[in-house]
């Protein structure tokens, strides 16, 4: 036993030092406050990828849940499944495509939701809960877009391409259509958005799963 110890002493020594120093390693690698070194951003880099992904997923989950609740607030007379302006993703094999499709989904929905918000404001008797929820979803969607952009920048090292917040928008708000027709259109919009939100959430969760275990994700 003692002889063995003598022979493998270097290895053991390294191992022991590694064991001893692990608290140091932890404290050093985890910048708790990002305030140790003034003026040096290298010590305090950006938010880690895992955290970004978690937050993005958190956003997507909440957006989906709230949009689902908003949909239920509508009295659904018709079940219109025409989600003509949804983005159908064909290939989801790569992480890159996942991220890009999520980004495209998010970006495509920002404006319609703003429009929905304005139409709801125009109603006289729209339920307040619905208005609040729609507003909240619209805000969080913008935040989600930023998050996905940051994630893409981190994961894929690509440039940023955030949407320019177009004030004018594609939709014209001058003409107010018939009330019922408008309500139906709003409901259709919201239900389609709900489906896309679910898609976003699923893609992001798949992405996260792949980060952990590449071959074990459904």
């Amino acid at each position: 036993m003692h002889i063995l110890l003598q022979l493998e002493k270097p290895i053991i020594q390294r191992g022991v030092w590694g064991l001893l120093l692990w608290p140091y390693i932890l404290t050093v690698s985890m910048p708790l406050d990002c305030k140790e070194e003034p003026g040096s951003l290298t010590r305090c880099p950006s938010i880690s990828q895992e955290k970004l992904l978690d937050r993005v997923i958190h956003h997507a989950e909440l957006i989906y849940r709230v949009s689902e609740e908003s949909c239920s607030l509508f009295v659904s007379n018709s079940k219109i499944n025409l989600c003509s302006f949804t983005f159908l993703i064909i290939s989801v094999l790569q992480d890159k495509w996942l991220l890009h499709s999520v980004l495209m989904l998010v970006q495509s929905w920002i404006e319609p939701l703003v429009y929905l918000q304005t139409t709801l404001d125009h109603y006289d008797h729209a339920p307040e809960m619905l208005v609040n929820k729609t507003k909240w979803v619209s805000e969080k969607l913008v935040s989600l877009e930023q998050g996905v952009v940051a994630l893409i920048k981190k994961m894929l090292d690509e440039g940023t391409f955030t949407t320019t917040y177009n004030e004018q928008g594609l939709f014209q708000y001058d003409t107010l259509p018939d009330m019922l027709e408008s309500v139906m259109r709003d409901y259709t919009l919201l239900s389609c958005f709900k489906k896309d939100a679910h898609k976003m959430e699923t893609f992001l969760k798949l992405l996260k799963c792949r980060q952990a275990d590449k071959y074990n994700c459904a």
Partner: protein
Amino acid sequence: MLWLLLCLLPPVSYGRIVAQNNAHTERHNHEATGGTTTRPHIYFCRSPNMEDFTCWWHPLSNLTDGEEVTHILTYSKEKEAKLECPDYVTGGPNSCHFDSSHTSIWMVYCLTVTAITTHRNYTSKQHCLDVAEIVQTETPVNLTYNLTDVGGDEMGHNALISWTYPVPAHVQYGWITLVYELQYRRITEPNNWKVKYPLREPQVELLGLPVDDYVVRVRCRAQHSKLWSDWSATLVMSIPPRQSAGKLLVLILVTGVGVVALLVITFSIVLQSKRIKEYFLPPIPKPRIIGIDPLLLKKGNLDEINRHFSNFHSYRPPSYSEEVWDHVSTDDIYLTTPKHSSDAHNPSESERDTLIVPCNPAPLEVSTRHQLTALNPNSYMQNVPPYCSLPNEAFTPPLSIPSPWPMPEIVSLPRTDYSMMEHPSLSNTIPTPDLTFSTSPSPQDFYTCVQLLNESGEVHLVPCLPPPYCREFPPLPRANLDTAEKEEKKKTTNHQTRKNDGGNSEKSEAAVPLLPVAVDNSG
């Protein structure tokens, strides 16, 4: 030496981690102490809802009199350009507030405060932060308590403590998930806090609190954050000492039930005192002779009686067959005189022959044949050696002998098997039984008497006793036939017990059938 290092390093590193964690709490208290004065220092930043945040700094304090100083906070988000603080006012003096449009949870903020004086600028240390990491929620408010169980038990009372989060908008839609921690202690124990953690709901029920006064406080934090909110205002909760109504009720019930039970037992003892006394002190029985219970005889329990009497010598239980008794009337009865023996020989006669039973001491021949079997030639007689019945041959000798008194005749009913023996009516004086008969020597002074006549023609004969007994046959005058019959009728219709009595008495007299009684017995 290696082991020495091994022992030293972990505590040191742990100490460093702890120091980092305590830095935040220190920052908040730094204001009082003053901190470093050579340059400004951002000591605390917090975000209540992850949508906006505020940072505070210590201003430059090393000021000469009359010197003016302004502080400017600049920040940059990761690698972007530096920007100035958008709001210096909302957070109070020496603060910078970033509203939701200026807050991003996707990037790290690095802030710097610069103190500009007339002479020079003092730049503080850069402070970088991640907005999601500095989330410190609001302090819970409206801490109240309710005693849930009014009755209470030995352990004490249960108290339901509840509070509210002051800004519900932060937690709506699940944006922030809160975790609460509650601490309580007795007033008399200042440092013995009991902790309830983690709590997801803004309420908790404390069970089994002993009677005392308690101090309660609560705080919360965002689930993903490490920062706790401040402690809420302490609540003084007093558990009242109270006589539990439940205990009293139970006591009353138990005593009531006990008293009622005691009364019932007493009454039952008093009423049944005699029986109880007899049970415990049984009375000494009076002397009694073991014998037949008269009740047995009344009830007609023949089996019992037979059992009792079987102890006696030569007792045979009477066998009672079911016979049909016809009502006897005088018209039906034909009295036949003893016929000539020659007539008796003829078994073809439809009518039954009568038998004469003389009770004279003359020895008679014993014969197995008898005319009574006319109806049923197959019947036979039991083994009774001496007869009272007389065979044909034996008929003549008795006829030759003058009977001192009228010979008893067997009266038979033509249609039935009923027959009785009787003496013909004696118009003459009944000659007194002459004991002289007994003087004539006869080695076999046996007579048989018909005891029983069955339907099948079977005749049960029993030996007659010597003449003294035969003399005892009560002579029945013809005129008295009806009465005798009536008597017998009466007797037959009487209870079985009387028959039994007669039978018993007869049996006790060595099985000598008295004629009327014999008839009875034949029933």
